[in-house]
């Protein structure tokens, strides 16, 4: 199976300047009962997006037609909490391809990368700049260049971001980890033989 490829993304952004957005907010637990990967976008940010009577909460940014695009710009420590990969599925299913924040929780970052959703970690100063640009001019297009590992605003200001070389090549080529691990099966078997395992289960 392959991963959706990622190369250069140019898009308008949706600003969510909230810190510590946890995966319970991204996709509440009661929507985790599906046994397939599809359709989670519908319930993305469910309890922020809808009022108690299930009408759309017009104050929430996803219901604000001023903003659109496939880049989410969020406050620090995005994706903390539960390991649910459903959070990455929901963001991707909704249409996001990248999330920009000044800090990502570890498990979320892995989950996002495993689903073709690029977490772009920038400095706090740059995050503020992006938020300001987007909030001031919703038509602002941000360019995320994976080969160059660069995020650029229309005024030309840019910042480099980190990604490990292995994950980068997976995303550029649409390879997935499981195919990679399956190609390493002989190595793994060799390891099993070589290592006097502490415990036989």
């Amino acid at each position, binding site marked *: 199976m392959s991963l959706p490829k990622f190369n250069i993304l140019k898009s308008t952004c949706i600003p969510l300047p909230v810190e510590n957005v946890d995966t*319970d907010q991204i996709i509440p637990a009661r929507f985790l009962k599906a046994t397939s990967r599809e359709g989670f976008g519908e319930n993305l940010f469910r309890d922020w997006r809808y009022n108690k009577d299930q009408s759309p909460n017009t104050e929430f940014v996803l219901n604000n037609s001023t903003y659109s695009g496939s880049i989410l710009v969020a406050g620090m420590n995005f994706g903390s909490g539960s390991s649910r990969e459903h959070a990455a599925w929901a963001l991707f299913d909704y249409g996001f391809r990248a999330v920009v924040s000044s800090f990502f929780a570890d*498990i979320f970052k892995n989950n996002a990368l495993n689903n073709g959703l690029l977490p772009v970690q920038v400095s706090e100063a740059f995050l503020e700049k992006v938020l300001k640009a987007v909030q001031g001019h919703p038509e602002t297009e941000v360019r995320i260049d994976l080969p160059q590992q660069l995020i650029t605003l229309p005024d030309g200001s840019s910042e480099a971001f980190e990604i490990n070389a292995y994950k980068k090549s997976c995303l550029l080529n649409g390879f997935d980890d499981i195919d990679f691990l399956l190609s390493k099966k002989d190595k793994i078997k060799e390891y099993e033989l070589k290592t006097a395992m502490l415990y036989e289960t």
Partner: protein
Amino acid sequence: MEPKTLFDKIWDRHVVESIEGGPDILYIDRHYIHEVTSPQAFTGLEKRGVQLMHPEKTVATADHNIPTKGQHLPIQEALSRVQVKTLTENCERHGVTLYGLNHPYNGIVHVIGTELGMSLPGMTMVCGDSHTSTHGAFGTIAFGIGTSEVEMVFASQCVLQPKPKKMRITIDGKLQKGVTSKDIILYVIAQISASGATGYFVEFAGEAIRALSMEARMTVCNMSIEMGARGGMIAPDEVTFAYLKGREFAPKGKEWDTALEQWKQLKTDEDAVFDKELAFSAQDIGPMITYGTNPGMGIAVDGNIPQLDSVPEKAQASFKKSLQYMDFEAGSALMGRPVDYVFLGSCTNGRIEDLRSFAAVVRGKQKAPNVTAWIVPGSQQVAKQAIAEGLDKILEEAGFELREPGCSACLAMNEDKIPEGKYAVSTSNRNFEGRQGPGARTMLASPLTAAAAAVTGKITNPAELV
């Protein structure tokens, strides 16, 4: 030889291969799964036409979705029923051992793995669940993974992981009366914030940690994820060995002796270097409670919520949003505030010692009339033990009822949801908005503080009752 940390010792011997500029291929000794994060992994595997590499290294339970009353009946809620049934079918088809609903070993994944002696020092362990960090209490590298990674373990018994940085948190001194291991971890998270250990794997050390029972240690490691850590661990010692001896799946006879010899090597060398070291004093820790919507927002139960201007400016918006959700005022006290719900349970505090300490507080008293209490054992075995010790009777006499095991109101995927706007003192691990039900207001605390609230009907310092 270069001095090594406990973490390095275990990690390094599980690396199959290090990828240039990338993660390590890490071999996994033990894999736990449950109904919520495994179905898509099984489907993925089947689509690839691949078999589980080692079905015998994976163990399954149903815990997240299941009701805590009437477990002998079919699950009422259709989607939960399908998810549990899907787990059962997947396990049958792929030869995975399942401790499903009504099995005597059924329970919350992080409660059963440890009580059955399946989590052993020196192991690498994963589960599609962030609180896998619990098992680190045994001196293991245990961490939560996503569903794609569950599929990786199925297919290759390995995951791809960049090696995290290492942190040691030392707690010296002795705990005061009414203060538990839950208070230690809530205190540490309040000190370093909900993201204070992101990117790190944490070893807990020091006199106060050594003095804890195995179950209390599990509570500490359980919540290490709540400060962003990849996992937490505690070096195994006599307490660990005594706990494991004789457990169902722990090694026996000669194998035990061999294992014990190896386990005794599992500690951080004296001069080993951590990327970060923190130290706290146990005397400074009081019974803790959270007032906000992330686990880092904790205070001493008799303290005040911080004033707005004491919060860093850029965090003020989130702080205000949090207090608005909780309907609390900055600077105000929590003591004496009425409580609507009390939840004792979860993989953090749903073990027998937790039930014992709750029962000790409520014994001879009465549940406050304004409180609805849910007492949920972490597993069938915990429930059985509680009944054998007569804890159910003590609870009943005080107006409480022992329910059937499961995750329950910890994440409210089943019927156990705290209603909107209601205040719950909960022994679980997350106080996120809506975590215990849409609009629910969660205050995290220890079983003692929960018990104190349950009998007084308001936030109470448990030191007054124990």
